[in-house]
């Protein structure tokens, strides 16, 4: 369990989008086998403008606009990764990973094992997650639970610019297929990012806020939501510890369980659909590992189990909020 905030050396502030672009630029510079491919990634710099400018430095041979062929480009990435390249495949909306499941799950995830360790697939699939953009049911999902279910894949869900940069660099250097989920609503989130080169290891949770009364395990933008909730809870004397696993696989079970043992209460917050989602795994890891320490059942807060509605009046009801985390925490602490 590390607390990289302590390691920050500079006071430079970047948005999460900038941190991601910088990670890609550094890795493209460092390793000529790295390339980026996706729809409108070059001159347009992606639909979210996160990659703006990369094509100017690295050229269209390394920042490559593709046809609208999510299965095809993912498959190309698998083959390129097996033969000496380090592809970063950009899938514009996380909802479209539906189209990549065969290549990611039946090919990328299994090739190393099926070949008895001879072949490997060092590729990164970068994609997005998160609702609240009034983009409706086919452009708002957080489907990282699916990849987390699959042996052979690693899954990253960064919550800060600092983490996003360090984890993306690790992902690109990893010899395995890695799915990297970026919350669309966090691209403008600002945070300190040192000038110096750094990477962040997978499978090491980060305590985003220490606390003694309740553990809140949260992923991606839900970390920010939980930190806000923790502030509100502090005002009524409940000190919440916010634990960010940063990767859903490998999962830092130890850090999560230790925190729950310490606080004896836990909530898991994730923006994927709640049912059969990430919160289920983490909650059952805690319920098992901290069984004899828990004073109350582990509670889960995921997205409401409905297709994400367009209307702002409805959409906002479907995502976990600081208020819902606070309510749940208060109930667990017997403070209603």
């Amino acid at each position, binding site marked *: 369990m590390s607390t990289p905030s302590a390691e920050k050396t500079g006071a430079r502030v970047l948005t999460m989008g900038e941190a991601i672009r910088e990670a890609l630029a550094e890795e493209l510079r460092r390793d000529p086998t790295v390339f980026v491919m996706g*729809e*409108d990634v*070059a*001159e*347009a710099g992606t*639909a979210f403008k996160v990659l703006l400018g990369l094509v100017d430095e690295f050229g269209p041979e390394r920042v490559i*606009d*593709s*046809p*609208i*062929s999510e*299965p*095809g480009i993912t498959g190309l990435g698998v083959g390129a990764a097996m033969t000496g390249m380090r592809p970063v495949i950009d899938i514009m909306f996380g*909802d*479209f990973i539906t*189209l990549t499941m065969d290549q990611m799950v039946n090919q990328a995830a299994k090739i190393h094992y099926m070949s008895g360790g001879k072949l490997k697939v060092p590729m990164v699939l970068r994609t997005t997650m998160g609702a609240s*953009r*009034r*983009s*409706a*049911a*086919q*452009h708002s999902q957080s489907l990282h639970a699916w990849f987390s279910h699959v042996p052979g894949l690693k899954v990253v869900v960064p919550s800060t610019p600092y983490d996003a940069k360090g984890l993306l660099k690790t992902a690109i250097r990893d010899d395995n297929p890695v799915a990297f989920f970026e919350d669309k609503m966090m691209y403008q989130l600002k945070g300190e990012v040192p000038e110096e080169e750094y990477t962040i290891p997978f499978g090491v949770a980060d305590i985003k806020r220490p606390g003694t009364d309740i553990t809140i395990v949260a992923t991606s933008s839900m970390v920010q939501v939980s930190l806000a909730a923790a502030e509100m809870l502090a005002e009524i004397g409940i000190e919440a510890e916010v634990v960010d696993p940063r990767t859903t696989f490998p999962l830092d079970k130890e850090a999560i369980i230790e925190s729950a043992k310490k606080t004896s209460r836990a909530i898991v917050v994730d923006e994927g659909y709640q049912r059969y989602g990430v919160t289920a795994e983490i909650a059952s890891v805690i319920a098992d590992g901290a069984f004899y320490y828990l004073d109350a059942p582990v509670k889960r807060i995921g997205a*409401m*189990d*409905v*297709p994400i*509605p*367009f*209307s*702002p*009046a*409805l959409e906002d*009801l*479907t995502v976990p909020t600081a208020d819902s985390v606070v309510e749940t925490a208060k109930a667990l602490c017997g403070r209603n």
Partner: protein
Amino acid sequence: MAKTAKQTKLKTGKSATPDAEEWLTMYEQMVRIRRFEERVNLLYTSAKMPGLAHLYIGEEAIAVGVCSVLNPEDYITSTHRGHGHCIAKGADVDIMFAELLGKAAGYCKGKGGSMHIADQANGNLGANAIVGGSAGIAVGAAFSAQRLGNGRVAVCFFGEGAMGQGFLAETMNLAQLWKLPVIFVCENNMYNEYTHFSETTAGNPADRARALGIHTEEQDGQDIRVVYETALAAVERARRGEGPAFLMFHTYRYHGHHVGDINREYYRSKEEERDWVENRDPLALFADWLLAKKLTDRGVLDGIEAEVKEEVERGAQFALDAPYPDPSEVSTNVYA
């Protein structure tokens, strides 16, 4: 709401040589689409509309030409750029506006939004935000029509970018194998978002359909008379049981990929835009012909303009004033 201008709907049983009234109804529909979308753009720029919208302006002759050869019970499937198809198939602008604003009175109770308007009373099986994603629905609807023997046809609208999706190729194979009454209408506006289609498309899209033995036409999409004639022939073939058709129409979107895509010079020139708008505008070309053929006079056309404009403004106001869905709606309609 009263919609005076709309009362001259085309009758069913389509004529190979529409009379003046029929042509004027088509003209009116094209005007309706254009005015509707200009108003949508205004709603966006005045921050009254949640999310984004993809404007169809410039492509009106295709939706109207094709839908004018269909009966109300015939099916269409549409895309993210779907307002034109929706209106052309008979939808009312007020209920569309309500949907775009996420209001309870919308076609989908506000749950769908711009990219998911469905209007099954008029045979519109829905816009679709997955590029190419509706092809299965269209082919399936044609399958139903064939099996139920109800004489209906299905039209699948999509952009040339969808040719990147293997899914579309699969469904075209199914359609041709089983001689399903489905018309694939490829609206080739030359851009996949911010990338020219020549960078994403090997060969001529129409040849892919020809390779399957599908009846294929490649035509000017700015001249509604050409569109109408081409579509009519394809629909009649399909109704006779002779199988699917693939119609590729050359066209252009005047606005950005979506309402927020303002600075477009990095992917297409102002000259190109100006050329299409000034020399190939489907409304202007149509009006000129109607006048030249003396099928109408300026006064009538101006009258249509005025009436549609008022209808659209009334529709927008209706939607602006309409209430949001009740919060309880968030969890209804998940299951039928």
